[in-house]
């Protein structure tokens, strides 16, 4: 269609001449507006100032907003319960999705769908044997540091990971991963994941058979869980975890990951640490995507609310800016409306994006707390940024 419309430019001129004849007596002196043809925009490459905002349950699609202008740049076709990832080299958008041959019935088809980031057309559909159906998760579909492999979490209801060769655009293998989920890439090794015994599992996929090793248990998976939507810093090979009570763990990711002693976000703000006891109301982390890591500076931004333990899905009324190296909360930004998801650009002058149940998106300068842009109906889902590290 695009090509055709461009090809008709000559016809347009002819048509215009014809139209000018048909309207020979213009009422005013203003030049008559000229006919136009339809076309399609081409997209810029993924930009470090962009936010990719998932619509949520009722609104399929991941909208791309420019953090500097607040303007929408385009949309990636992510239906309900899909996962979205960006090729580290910026060439492709990847969507892990499950389709049925008759909308909500018929034959199930699981795939990783590949979009060119410039013309945003679908390039490939890579069939996979399955994936989990869940919303609002960032770490069920992760890409290796070199952009070669995709790891797709599956629950059927046994727990496993489907490994996709993105270069060959082929499914490669399924690795059983009982009791673990929420992955991060582990450069040169494969991937690591959190486990229900409180350990971190590492899956080495370089050998003939995948080899799974585990750290000693370090967190309480059922009593003080780590949020699935943690952050991973590819440059530093470091993961940052946050628990329901507000413990912050950092882990050096390698063949044998090393987890450091945690610190309390509340203590880092000069308050008493969070506790699991009922009736103990404190500032607590919460939301669907409750934390965002600015990797270049080592600052983490956390959505915090007042509540007891087990209010971990509650939206944040403040954003706390944590200096991870100093173990200090250096700033608390109040929010006029509670917000559910937070992300931060990986630029020298970072920008925050928060959204919530009202589907509003706010772009905030974390240095000043100023709201730079407010976007109506931006989406209520999780947010992705380009990670140049």
């Amino acid at each position, binding site marked *: *269609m*695009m090509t*055709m*419309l461009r090809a*008709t430019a000559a*016809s*347009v001129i*002819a*048509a*215009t001449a*014809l*139209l000018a004849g*048909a*309207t020979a007596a*213009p*009422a*005013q002196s*203003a*030049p*008559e*507006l*000229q*006919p*136009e*043809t*339809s*076309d*399609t*925009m*081409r*997209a810029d490459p993924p930009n470090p100032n962009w936010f990719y905002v998932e*619509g949520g349950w009722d*609104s*399929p*699609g991941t*909208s*791309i907003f420019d953090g500097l202008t607040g*303007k*929408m*740049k*385009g*949309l990636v*076709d992510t*239906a309900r319960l899909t996962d979205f990832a960006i090729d580290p080299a910026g060439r492709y958008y990847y969507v892990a999705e499950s389709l049925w041959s008759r909308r909500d019935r018929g034959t199930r088809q699981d795939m990783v769908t590949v*979009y060119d980031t*410039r*013309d*945003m*057309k679908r390039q490939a559909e890579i069939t996979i044997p399955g994936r989990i159906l869940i919303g609002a998760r960032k770490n069920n579909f992760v890409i290796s540091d070199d952009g070669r492999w995709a790891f797709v979490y599956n629950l059927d209801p046994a727990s496993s990971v489907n490994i996709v060769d993105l270069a060959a655009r082929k499914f490669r293998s399924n690795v059983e991963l009982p009791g673990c989920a929420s992955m991060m890439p582990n450069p040169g090794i494969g991937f690591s994941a959190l486990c229900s015994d409180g350990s971190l599992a590492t899956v080495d996929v370089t050998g003939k058979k995948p080899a799974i090793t585990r750290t000693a248990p370090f967190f309480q998976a059922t009593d003080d869980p780590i949020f699935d939507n943690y952050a991973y810093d590819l440059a530093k090979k470091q993961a940052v975890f946050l628990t329901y009570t507000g413990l912050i763990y950092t882990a050096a990711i390698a063949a044998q990951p090393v987890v450091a002693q945690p610190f309390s976000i509340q203590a880092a703000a000069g308050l008493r640490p969070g506790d699991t006891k009922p009736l103990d109301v404190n500032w607590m982390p919460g939301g669907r995507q409750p934390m965002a890591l600015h990797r270049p500076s080592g600052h983490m931004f956390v959505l915090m609310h007042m509540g007891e333990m087990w209010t971990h899905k509650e939206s944040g009324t403040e954003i706390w800016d944590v200096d991870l190296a100093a173990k200090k909360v250096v700033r608390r930004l109040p929010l006029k409306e509670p917000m559910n998801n937070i992300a931060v650009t990986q630029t020298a002058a970072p920008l925050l994006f928060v959204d919530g149940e009202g589907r509003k998106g706010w772009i905030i300068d974390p240095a000043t707390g100023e709201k730079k842009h407010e*976007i*109506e*109906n931006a*989406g209520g889902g999780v947010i992705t940024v380009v990670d140049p590290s």
Partner: protein
Amino acid sequence: MKLFDADAIGETILRRLAGRTSRRGILSRAGLALVAAPVFPLLPVSRAQASKPDRSAEAKTAFARNAQSKDDTKCDYWRYCAIDGALCTCCGGGIHSCPPGAEPSPVSWVGTCINPDDGKAYLIAYRDCCGKPACGQCGCDNTDRETQLYTPQLNNDVIWCFGTSSMEYHCSTAVLVGAAG
């Protein structure tokens, strides 16, 4: 020739043809038994040309009296007098451009809107951009001379994504086709 063939026909061409061939002729060749109004985005042009144009305030709809020509990301932009849907200008597209990856529909519904700058009426083709989920930004529903399904080319509820590779509705453009009277 085939009617509504996305690979061969745009409205501009149809308008040219209209000057040479009777509409009835085109439609019969396409195998349609034309009885009354054709399913064809030309009717408003002929109607507008046939009627005496009256651009006084008393002859303008509420929309036309309040329309502006500066910001095409607002519902009251003059070309949007009969649009329904998300404005592509708010979705990463332009007034006649689909956002990246979306496909313009080759056929469309139309409106006749008055440009406040020159006081003239123009024929606007509201082409849907197709193949992506709804954009969600800047939803507008203006209804100047918008009619019902038996005159589909003047109805703004129909999904006009015919001849595109997907019929999923993304957003709507407002393409200037020409002066209307």
